[in-house]
């Protein structure tokens, strides 16, 4: 039976897949970045279908609205052009892509074969911000705090790495 839910799933999934493939196919990083944004938006739609509205919103705000902006920003800043065609690793092309396809097919086969008809209902689990907040600040408080430290360290690391390297102190000339 084809339900609205399934149609929406397929539509978003198609967008996501198209975006993912486009990410690989495009040679210009900015196009790849935009395809990735499309993937993320489509995934946000999937999250909505799964009843995770808060995750969907955060997916858009954080992933699409902040992280990807950072990517686009860096691409613009470095004025990254079209990818160079250098001699690549032939191993990757010869074994990597077929291997990946084979692997994903295998995974798909196993999953489809084994988890058959168990279905996920729409909105079965309302991801209300309140409940998630409760979970996050009670059960997962320690991981939460640890990730906050992680992100603090990341901020400092980014500042240190991206700031202009200090000019080396002038070497004193030894008169001979």
């Amino acid at each position: 039976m084809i339900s609205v839910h399934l149609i929406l799933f397929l539509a978003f999934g198609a967008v996501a897949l198209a975006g993912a493939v486009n990410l690989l196919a495009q040679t210009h990083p900015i196009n790849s970045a935009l395809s990735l944004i499309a993937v993320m938006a489509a995934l946000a739609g999937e999250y909505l279908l799964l009843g995770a509205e808060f995750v969907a919103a955060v997916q858009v705000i954080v992933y699409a609205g902040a992280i990807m902006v950072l990517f686009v920003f860096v691409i613009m800043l470095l004025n990254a052009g079209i990818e160079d065609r250098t001699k690549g690793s032939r191993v990757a092309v010869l074994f990597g892509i077929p291997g990946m396809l084979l692997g994903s097919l295998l995974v798909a086969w196993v999953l489809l074969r084994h988890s058959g008809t168990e279905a996920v209902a729409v909105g079965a689990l309302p991801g209300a911000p309140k409940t998630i907040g409760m979970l996050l600040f009670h059960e997962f408080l320690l991981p939460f705090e640890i990730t906050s430290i992680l992100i603090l360290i990341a901020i400092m690391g980014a500042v240190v790495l991206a700031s202009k390297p200090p000019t080396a102190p002038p070497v004193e000339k030894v008169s001979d």
Partner: protein
Amino acid sequence: MPIWLYILTSVIKSAIVLGVLLTAVAYTVWLERKVVGHMQNRWGPTRVGPFGLLQPAADGLKFLFKEDLTPPHVYKPLFLAAPLIAVIFALTSIAVIPFGNSITIGGYSIPLQITDVNTGLLLILGVTSIGVYGVALAGWSSNNKYSLLGGLRASAQMVSYEISLGLSLVGVLIMSGSFSLRDIVNAQAGHFWGFIPRWNIFHGQIIGFFCYLMAAYAETNRIPFDLPEAETELVAGYHTEYSAMKFAMFFMAEYANMITVACLATLLFLGGWHGPLFGPAILQAILPVFWFGVKIFAFLFLYIWVRGTLPRFRYDQLMAFGWKFLLPLSLMNLVATAIAVAW
């Protein structure tokens, strides 16, 4: 309510809201020119129509008939997509803005809102955060160093101020306990001591309002934070290379964003459509929408007033202000609110 009626009302509401919004955008431009003109001891538009009231229509026609120039060496797909992105996301967020309570027609209660999403505020935040791409991509795809600088500035500025913006809203969220804009407005009904309205701005969120104001000005790239366009240094920033309708789209996007921000400020801090109700039933039904409009108008006037008054920041000042002043301030506001509510 049968499904066809639901769809019908939704379509009608969308059409009305979109029409009103676009008109409002057009007349905000007129208003701005007029007000700034008077502030600078000139008249502003006077020629087209009485008080220049038809000026927006004339401008629109002009944009439509101008040559749509696409310079060489631009990255065409994105050059075309950027204004669309800007205007589409600017207009989208209006969909969840409630502009009044429900009205009852023929036994059916129709909420004055295109759609009531229970995470409406998040949706607006998400949509505005996507809106950055319009400006950034326009700047980059123009293949022009001024535009690129404008785009870079815009993306850095908007990402930076989005944090303060979000944090300044969290205080309100804590007080109302909901993401639904309707609930937030309803939480502000009533009065203190019988005469002070129970709006969030009078309810301890004055600092939050201040932070929101600053961050919103920066988000909409308005003076004093209009560095992405900064005509004196960057010619016109990200839309240097744009002309005709594509330029008009950026223009529309900017003013639509202003209106969205004004709506949000009204809903979150100024009590939404709450105001004195009196008179017959029909008046009582219309008055909330009127109050809502008045508050938005006041906020837009503030926008224009600031534009006519303040000079532009330097870029480093802008970043320092955002990160070193506004962010800590909104954080403190958040903590203080949380403590007060937990009390």
